[in-house]
């Protein structure tokens, strides 16, 4: 179907965008209360004692604020402790409780990759959840980071906003206060309500072993024969030997899924309980659960733009940022939806209905529109959950998620990470505008000076070097192409996507790549660390530097940071930086693949 005729698609897009707009203000106001150490919320009667208990155990004084360096040290120490905590659990899951399937320990490089992945809010998964991780590993080792990495991201964004809002100040907040308040007052209560809703739609939440069903129509299939070590048995000329297997039962995965999925979406983590992630019928049972999951990715990031406006006492600035984000979001959805609706001409030539669109790697209950919407939103934000397989998208349909990640996930973005990434682009946009008109750049009364611009450029460059550097290395190595599932330009796209996703702390994949190897686990692990900390540390330093400055009164010559002109300038900065950096690599991957698909009969 052509998208212009797809009334229900447009209706769903309108409902989605409308609801997001409506929820932005209440979410922003609530964030404002939570991120104020003395702020009052309606949950105070229940949660205030728990919060006090936390400070008492830590020996922390919630009234004492930190400067940016102390804040950074606390954040790094907490991240290190959490990584080791999870690494230990994954390595020892075979001796820990709640492992009814008797799954063995993670290998050292997989445990490193996974611990880093969840700590950095990436949730890249080199493993399939249901066949690798025990209930304990999922519920404690991984879900822990779903909460705290989200809270850490929001905290960093809040610190940067405070840096902009304050003047002549050193202190920018207290990490432990931000951490515990975000978890207790925002993420925890929202997740409880959300998780129970998901169960009502059909998501599982139990601790029983996997069920075995006696299927109605037993059948036999031919499968590749394996020996006791799980290695493929080879026949005389080196071909694998096949054997007949009678299938009369089905093993059905179980576990504490809903509690993990709620925070996985709300915290823009994205790590699936199962391998198929949010396309698994348990992990996303209905179109309604799907719609709410997509909305929940954008909820907090969108609210943070309102928080920004409120804190800097310029609500129109917050809305101008929101508007720029919404514009990129809508362009991405429509482009991806169009490409997936048009489908794959190679399959149409074989007799497949052209009107059904590209259904390879998609689920019937979601259809084309909801798959394109999910793919766009999950990569606008640094979520990384998927409800369809991006690897099987058409070339241009797959280009959109890839490009979204490479633009820095600043379209609403990950919780916190989206806003601090955006603010870095705001600094660059203001700087460029200043250069164009030949006056000292100024942002909300603060002079933007060399240090600020250097920190912002470091932030942007780190991502480009990590994504392109690692991809180039993998492409010329022996281990890189060995793990590919597709040949030709699509193979390059698989590698490019992997390092974009790792560096962007996204976590989605062109999942054909067999990433669970020593080299991929290690290099993607490093990319995730770069993408997290070479972004957070400059962002915190920028916050400290901005907070220190005096504020000049606004004059007629001040650069206005609200209104459509500013939105367009911000949009232009994001698109130009992203396009100039990644266009050459994209043209060797999805773009050339598109022309091969439409203009040749090459297959790989």
């Amino acid at each position: 179907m052509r998208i212009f005729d797809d009334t229900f698609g447009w209706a769903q897009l309108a409902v989605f965008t409308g609801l997001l707009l409506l929820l932005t203000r209440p979410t922003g106001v609530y964030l404002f209360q939570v991120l104020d150490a003395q702020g009052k919320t309606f949950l105070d009667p229940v949660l205030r004692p728990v919060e006090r208990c936390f400070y008492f155990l830590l020996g922390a004084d919630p009234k004492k604020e930190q400067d940016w360096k102390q804040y950074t040290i606390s954040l790094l120490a907490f991240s290190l402790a959490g990584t080791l905590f999870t690494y230990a659990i994954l390595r020892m899951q075979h001796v820990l409780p709640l492992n009814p399937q008797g799954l063995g320990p993670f290998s050292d490089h997989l445990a490193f990759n996974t611990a880093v992945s969840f700590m950095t809010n990436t949730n890249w998964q080199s493993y399939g959840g249901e066949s690798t991780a025990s209930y304990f590993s999922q519920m404690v080792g991984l879900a822990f980071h779903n909460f705290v990495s989200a809270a850490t991201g929001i905290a960093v964004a809040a610190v940067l906003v405070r840096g902009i809002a304050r003047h002549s100040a050193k202190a920018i907040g207290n990490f432990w206060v931000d951490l515990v308040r975000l978890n207790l007052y925002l993420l925890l209560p929202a997740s409880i309500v959300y998780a129970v809703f998901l169960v009502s739609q059909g998501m599982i939440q139990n601790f029983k072993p996997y069920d075995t069903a006696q299927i109605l129509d037993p059948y036999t299939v031919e499968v590749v024969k394996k020996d006791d070590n799980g290695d493929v048995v080879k026949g005389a000329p080196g071909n694998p030997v096949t054997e007949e297997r009678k299938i009369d039962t089905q093993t059905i995965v179980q576990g504490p899924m809903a509690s993990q999925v709620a925070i996985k979406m709300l915290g823009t983590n994205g790590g699936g309980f199962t391998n198929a992630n949010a396309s698994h019928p348990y992990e996303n049972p209905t179109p309604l659960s799907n719609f709410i999951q997509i909305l929940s990715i954008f909820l907090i990031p969108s609210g943070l733009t309102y928080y920004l406006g409120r804190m800097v006492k310029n609500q129109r600035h917050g809305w101008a940022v929101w508007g720029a984000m919404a514009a990129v979001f809508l362009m991405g959805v429509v482009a991806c939806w169009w490409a997936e609706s048009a489908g794959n001409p190679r399959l149409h030539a074989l007799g497949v209905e052209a009107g059904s669109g590209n259904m390879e790697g998609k689920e019937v209950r979601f259809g084309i529109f909801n798959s394109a919407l999910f793919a766009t939103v999950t990569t606008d934000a640094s979520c990384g959950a998927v409800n369809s397989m991006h690897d099987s998208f058409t070339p241009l349909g797959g280009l959109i998620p890839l490009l979204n990640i490479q633009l820095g996930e600043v379209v609403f973005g990950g919780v916190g990470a989206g806003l601090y990434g955006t603010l870095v682009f705001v600094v660059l946009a203001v700087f460029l505008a200043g250069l164009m008109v030949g006056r000292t750049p100024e942002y909300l009364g603060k002079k933007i000076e060399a240090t600020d611009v250097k920190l912002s450029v470091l932030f942007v460059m780190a991502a480009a070097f990590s994504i392109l550097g690692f991809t180039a290395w993998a492409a010329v190595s022996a281990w890189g192409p060995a793990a590919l599932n597709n040949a030709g330009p699509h193979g390059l796209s698989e590698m490019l996507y992997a390092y974009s996703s790792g560096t962007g702390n996204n976590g989605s994949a062109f999942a054909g790549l067999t990433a669970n190897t020593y080299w991929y686990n290690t290099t993607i692990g490093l990319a995730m660390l770069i993408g997290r900390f070479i972004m957070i540390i400059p962002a915190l330093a920028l916050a400290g530097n901005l907070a220190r400055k005096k504020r000049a009164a606004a004059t007629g010559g001040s650069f206005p940071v609200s209104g459509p002109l500013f939105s367009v300038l911000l949009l232009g900065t994001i698109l130009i930086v992203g396009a100039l950096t990644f266009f050459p690599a994209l043209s060797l991957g999805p773009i050339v693949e598109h022309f091969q698909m439409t203009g040749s009969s090459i297959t790989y």
Partner: protein
Amino acid sequence: MKNMLSELRVAVVATLFLAVVLCGVYPLVVWALSQGLFPHEANGSLIQRGGTVVGSELIAQNFGSPKYFHPRPSAAGEAGYDAGNSSGTNLGPLSKKLTDAVKERVEAYRAENGLAPDARVPADAVTSSSSGLDPHISLRNAFLQAPRVAQARGLDSEALEKIIRAITEGRDVGVFGEPRVNVLKLNLALDKKM
């Protein structure tokens, strides 16, 4: 350095405290509420027939016999439809493996359903789903299979179409998602009728 070490001690305490609340209390609260309010869903929406579990409402299982409606192709596990190993094919649009497989499935679909050799086949019937466990097929796919099933069961096709319509799930809240037919539920309804 001393600063970092004392921060690490604080960080360890914070980790343990938050782990108890977020990874102990929280999942148990959700578990208790779910088991109390939605026990069927929380335990996997399992379907029992004569005391044995025959599947889950939400999980596709394979049907190959002509008297049953067939689900979408599956790449879950090495034999397909393995609900302990969810997966798509992850084949790209120019993959030869993909085009070969689709070609074979299109021909098989036409043959088993008595369609013309140049008949257009719905995409969901010949492409693998994302999870490999997609429980649904499109309405068009169901109606194209209906004559074969009717013949194998000696049903008249009007009665069968009535059953399909009764099983069809519409868009959620009238707008979200796509209309669809749950294959397992449909086949169970047929078995019950016969």
